[in-house]
């Protein structure tokens, strides 16, 4: 398989996953705010914090109001992490791998992109938002299912899964980091609403029900952190993503260096005693994880992807 094609498949999967996760965090935040008393609610800024795009946001918007943040995350073409940009990038990547993925996958991503674009306005209003985001999430899931169920499970499929798990692991650490930080900040007044907020963390990953089944304990910080970071059965936990990324790497040629990097990542993850970490230590831990995920990406790119172009080119 050509390195360029492998890279396109990998990014295709990442962008689909990114669009889905962004739709999830917007949905959950909207619900959370309805449950919290006005005045003490953390508002919409944490969503921008999660994506790490604060500088860009502040360049274009005056304040972190609902409309502004939602527009930024859903439809802003200037924001490379917006759902609009992610779906467009996924579509462009898919265009070049049309001989690798089944035709239906192309039709699906094409349809999803067009739906997202044509219904943007609906997504920004309070009343239309829920249905819009649900359609995006289920559209992304359809693509993932379609590919798993119909494409050859060869090298290309490994890169597809690799992209998906890398993006998902990254997003899960971001959600945990930002949410738990904001939980701490207003500790005093928000204490009675702690549970609600941890429930919202779980819900943004569709993890609430699974947490209940798996942990059989009330929702609280320690077990929630353990569940979303270290559970090896929940498909959006960091541990699960890392383990499955590792198995994808296992099938690829020349994988020694990448396996070393991911081994280090897995060991750090397993060794952490999350319930003992205070907020600052947790943040440092998450920082470390994200650096590890970044290193892994660098290693994957260096081993299997084409070298970056020498001349200036528009990025994939």
């Amino acid at each position: 398989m050509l390195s360029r094609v492998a890279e396109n498949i990998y990014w295709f999967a990442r962008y689909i996953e990114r669009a889905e996760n962004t739709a999830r965090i917007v949905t959950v935040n909207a619900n959370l705010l309805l449950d919290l008393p006005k005045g003490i609610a953390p508002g919409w800024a944490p969503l921008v914090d999660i994506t790490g795009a604060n500088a860009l946001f502040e360049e274009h918007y005056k304040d972190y109001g609902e409309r502004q943040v939602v527009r930024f995350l859903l439809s802003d073409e200037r924001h490379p992490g917006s759902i609009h940009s992610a779906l467009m990038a996924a579509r462009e990547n898919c265009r070049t791998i049309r001989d690798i993925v089944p035709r239906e996958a192309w039709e699906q991503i094409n349809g999803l992109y067009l739906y997202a674009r044509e219904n943007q306005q609906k997504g920004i209003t309070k009343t239309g938002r829920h249905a819009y985001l649900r359609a995006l999430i289920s559209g992304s899931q359809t693509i993932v299912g379609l590919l798993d169920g119909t494409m050859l499970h060869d090298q290309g499929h490994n890169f597809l899964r690799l992209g998906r798990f890398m993006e998902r692991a990254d997003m899960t650490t971001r959600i945990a980091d930002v949410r738990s930080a904001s939980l701490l900040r207003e500790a005093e007044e928000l204490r009675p609403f702690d549970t609600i907020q941890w429930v919202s963390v779980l819900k943004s990953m569709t993890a609430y029900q699974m947490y209940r089944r798996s942990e059989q304990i009330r929702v609280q910080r320690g077990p929630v952190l353990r569940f979303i970071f270290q559970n090896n059965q929940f498909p959006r936990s960091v541990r699960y993503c890392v383990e499955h990324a590792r198995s994808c790497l296992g099938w690829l040629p020349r994988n020694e260096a990448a396996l070393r990097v991911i081994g280090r990542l897995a060991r750090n993850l397993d060794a952490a005693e999350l319930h003992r970490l205070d907020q600052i230590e947790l943040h440092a831990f998450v920082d470390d994880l994200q650096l590890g995920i970044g290193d892994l990406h660098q290693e994957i790119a260096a081993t299997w992807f084409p070298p970056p172009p020498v001349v200036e080119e528009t990025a994939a």
Partner: protein
Amino acid sequence: MGIDWTDYPSVGFYDELLAAPGEPRAETEALAADLAALGLDELVARQEAAEVAIKEMGITFTVYSEEGGAIDRAWPFDVIPRVIPEREWRQVEAGLKQRVKALNLFIDDLYHDQRIVKDGVFPEEVLAKSVNFRPQCVGVDPPLGVWAHICGSDLVRDADGTLYVLEDNLRVPSGVSYMLENRLVTKRVFPELFEHYAPLPVDDYPSQLFDTLAALSPRPAEYPEVVVLTPGIYNSAYFEHSYLAQQMGATLVEGRDLFVADDDCCYMRTVDGPAQVDVIYRRIDDLFLDPEAFNSESSLGVPGLMRAWTAGKVALANAPGAGVADDKVVYAFVPEIIQYYLGEAPIIPNVPTYRCMEPADMQYVLEHLAELVVKPANESGGYGMLVGPASTQAERDRIAAAIKKDPRNYIAQPTLSLSTVPTVTKAGIEPRHVDLRPFILSADRRQVTMGGLTRVALRKGSLVVNSSQGGGSKDTWILPDSGPAEGQSQSQSQTQGQA
């Protein structure tokens, strides 16, 4: 409702199906009758079925627009096939092979001794001003001495029925994938006609193309690694690039997938590491092939590719520099070229051509602009040309000035009355003008596609068949001389059914 061919409004042109309204040609009599029996409503229904099939099969070509970037458009197609009797086709086939053989000898000569120039048959000044002559290719010996491995020559038929070669495309001719797909579509929508007439098959092309390319491999002992080099998804022929790669089982690559190492070999970057490439079917122009040798701005090509090619470590098809014979002024000399290298008279004639470089010809052209088609030497796709009868005075003045400024860059030809084929239109069955692009493969042997791509100008009265300018296409049937299968005719077989 049946079709009454006596109402068919074909006057003043050679129609491929009918000798005159109501009078089918001897070899198309049965088909004309079958089409008439199907009737207009049924033909329209088949036309719609074909359009659905094309959408489903994803047969597209790409068009640029200022706002929307590149758009994939469904390939415009007309269901009524264009028929050529095998007897006639065999002549054409021989003529095309003759032509391409001579052109390859010509190109090889130009990059070596230039005997044809020294012998005074081909003017030095034409060569000197050729924009497609590549000094980088002088002295290079490509495998088997062949430069133009894939040639697409455009044929047109004039009012008296004579077939002419209109031009030869020796750089990166496109359209063959549509020839193949048109056949698939026709089989889907006309299975009964198809069975009955059994046109000679076209589907060998991808394997013939692969064999042609494989024959060029610098490592004959190994199974050759053949790749198709595309400029990328925004190229208008990207569909074809990816189609041919899939059909041949070759890898579709872009320039950045390849690199030339210090050993002068060309490699592609794969997940398993570098893999040596033997043959590149390149679908990008010479000037973008190698930024070290040509356009240093180009990011489409592969730095060092010319070095690898001249060292014989990788084969390029078509060879760089092959386009020197693809110039419309060179075209005017092809009859002399055939005579010079092969000692034979051309089997298929050229369209009579005025060379503006010759003062008498230029004089004639300038005086008759309103009747002639004037073409610049190195444009394709119908760009930059003047169609005299359809031109305005201002356009004629502009081209007259251009000709006077650079006579060598222009040729002119009489406006041909391109032949027509019945075509399904909103107003019923009407004649539309067609040309024909067969493809000729050359390596260790020469092969010609069975027929080729019939392009049709879908606008009434239009002579422009290019898909970028409102053209479509038709399936091309070479009908065996033995005629339709013996025994039951179409209508009889349909009377049989469950008792």
